[in-house]
């Protein structure tokens, strides 16, 4: 970043750039908005504090894993271990927080585990030059096995006050999500964050330009691990306990949310807001289809159609 533009011109550039990055996901935003309105009409309680709180709590863990997957996909990576990592985060939280280390100790254990697993995975993928899909698939067995070792069957406990704080009738989850998104914006302004897109879109070019490609990618894996175990902690708080297989479905859902949000598999393509919108749509669909009275079979079909629709609309507009 040798060019230092004047404050005025950055300000002038910022919004057009942001707007251009929205092009691919504008239709997704419209679909999400339509679903939000539909949900609000079908269930007016959504606008009450507790209705809003419960809804954002359903969405929150999916939003976190969507971010965890998106940050990897932006660097050209992927993780099939996100679900297992969520489970591990949940069982660590449920086994430590009610113990002598307390909530702070438990949260630290969850965070360190996430960062550690992520950094180790990233190191293997980046430094040993192994395919991410293979490493994380193998990792999912190891991490999932570790979760089962810690808690062979559902159990453990989360202090009730923490459950009520994070997943009670207050919009704490939503506030937390806003904070995490702001932190993400902040991260993008750091050298490692700036390198993220470059490392994903054109790693060789970026490397030759002096971008710390490897460091950016390992950091992305570490952050992804942290977000995943964080989602696990939240699920444990939300449910009041730990379950060693609770996260399984998050692997596929995180990929679905990211892809729906316009993140490309090849790296450097897409935005975090897209991934978040994708995860919001997946979560909204479940509730909206319930209130529309869809039968389970119709839900399967409708889900597929909505996803194809949300991805295909921008293509029609190009034609």
């Amino acid at each position, binding site marked *: 970043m040798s060019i230092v533009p004047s404050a005025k011109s950055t300000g002038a550039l910022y919004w057009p750039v942001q707007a251009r990055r929205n092009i691919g996901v504008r239709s997704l935003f419209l679909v999400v908005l339509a679903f939000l309105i539909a949900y609000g009409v079908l*269930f007016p*309680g959504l606008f009450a504090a507790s*209705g809003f709180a*419960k809804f954002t709590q*359903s969405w929150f*863990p*999916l939003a976190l894993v969507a971010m965890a997957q998106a940050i990897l996909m932006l660097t050209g990576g992927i993780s099939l271990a996100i679900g297992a990592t969520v489970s591990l985060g949940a069982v660590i939280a449920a086994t430590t927080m009610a113990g002598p280390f307390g909530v702070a100790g438990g949260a630290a254990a969850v965070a360190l585990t996430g960062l550690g697993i992520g950094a180790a995975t990233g190191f293997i993928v980046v430094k040993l030059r192994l395919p991410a899909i293979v490493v994380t698939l193998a990792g999912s067995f190891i991490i999932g096995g570790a979760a*089962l070792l810690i808690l*062979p*069957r*559902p*159990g*453990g406990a989360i202090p009730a006050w923490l*459950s009520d704080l994070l*997943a009670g009738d207050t919009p704490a989850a939503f506030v937390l999500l806003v904070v995490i998104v702001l932190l993400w914006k902040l991260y993008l302004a750091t050298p490692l964050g700036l390198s993220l897109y470059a490392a994903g879109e054109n790693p060789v070019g970026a490397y030759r330009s002096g971008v710390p490609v490897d460091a950016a990618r390992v950091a992305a894996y570490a952050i992804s691990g942290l977000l995943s175990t964080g989602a696990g902690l939240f*699920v444990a708080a*939300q*449910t*009041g*306990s*730990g*379950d*060693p*297989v*609770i996260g*399984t*479905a*998050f692997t596929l*859902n995180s990929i679905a949310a990211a892809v729906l949000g316009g993140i490309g598999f090849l790296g450097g393509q897409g935005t975090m807001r897209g991934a978040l919108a994708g995860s919001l749509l997946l*979560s909204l669909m*479940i*509730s909206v289809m*319930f*209130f529309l*009275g869809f*039968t*389970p*079979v119709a*839900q*399967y079909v409708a889900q597929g159609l909505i996803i194809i629709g949300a991805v295909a609309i921008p293509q029609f507009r190009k034609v």
Partner: protein
Amino acid sequence: MKKSSFFASASALCLGLVLAVSAGTTANAAANCIKGDRKPPYTIGWADIYSVPTWMKQTQGTIEAEVETLKKQGLVDKLVVTDAQGDANVQIQQIQSMIDSNIDAIILIAGSSTAPARVLADACAKGIAIINFDSLVDTDKVTAKVNTDSSQWGDQAAKFLINAIGGKGKILILNGPAGISVSDDRRKGADAELKAHPDVKVLAETNTPYNVAPAQEAVTSLLFANPEIDGILSLGGALSAGAVLALDKQGRDQVPITGENARQFLELWKEKGLKSWATMQPNWLGAFAAYTAVQALQGKDVPAFVKIPLPVIDNSNIDEYLARAKDFPADGYIYSPYDEELFKKLLAQK
């Protein structure tokens, strides 16, 4: 699914239950979660964890049949069905939606034995009747839990098998998926018998989904490794069918095996002349849950836990089950007969 008259005649025989029928039970105390402010006709929510397996489809069939009966009585006007597609988090969200839509009753098979506890407590606080059956949640904030005893299942299966192989020999143990309470409980239930018979050597254990193909694959590889096997302690019907097929494909002699009321297994049992024993998780637990929910909403006292005695299938009654086989899907479960009389008896037990 309307075979009530036949069910009525056969039910007493099939479930030799020790049920003290406390005649004229007066309902004084309302059941847990019930506030008495909900009036018929009721809307019942069926929070299915995963609708695709045949066992689940059959279970839903019994729920739908029961709801039809209750509709005719003017007690129920609507059945709302959700499918969490195996995801415990989605199930929680769907239960939340049921609460939001002010439903009268929720019946559920839980996707996790712990995860739905908090959302169910919310539902209970709103006076919704909650009947949890099959896979249970560790919470008392429900109206009633309904289940067979998984640990007794394991215990009885182990007793039969150890007896069948003469108290000593080498056996395989086939379990359902790891980390699932039901499979864990069945396995733990077998422990006491296994410990009491040190001459019974466990060669290997498997954890597979409750499906034929994965079990067959797992047993096949174990057969290569173990030339000598005297018996198989299988804790699931599809697992038993997979094991029998694996032995058959390898040209090995069939050995004593335990199982479940899976139609495929019962037919193999007859066809191969197996020395076998089976029990079941009756599909009509679903119908019973719907029935119990309505009873509770009407102010009847409902026990917090209804233990369903395990129906046993052995060589003395397998023909009765196979005679009804054509009424059940080829990959389904031939459950024991049921009727309203049976439900009343089950609710009356203390």
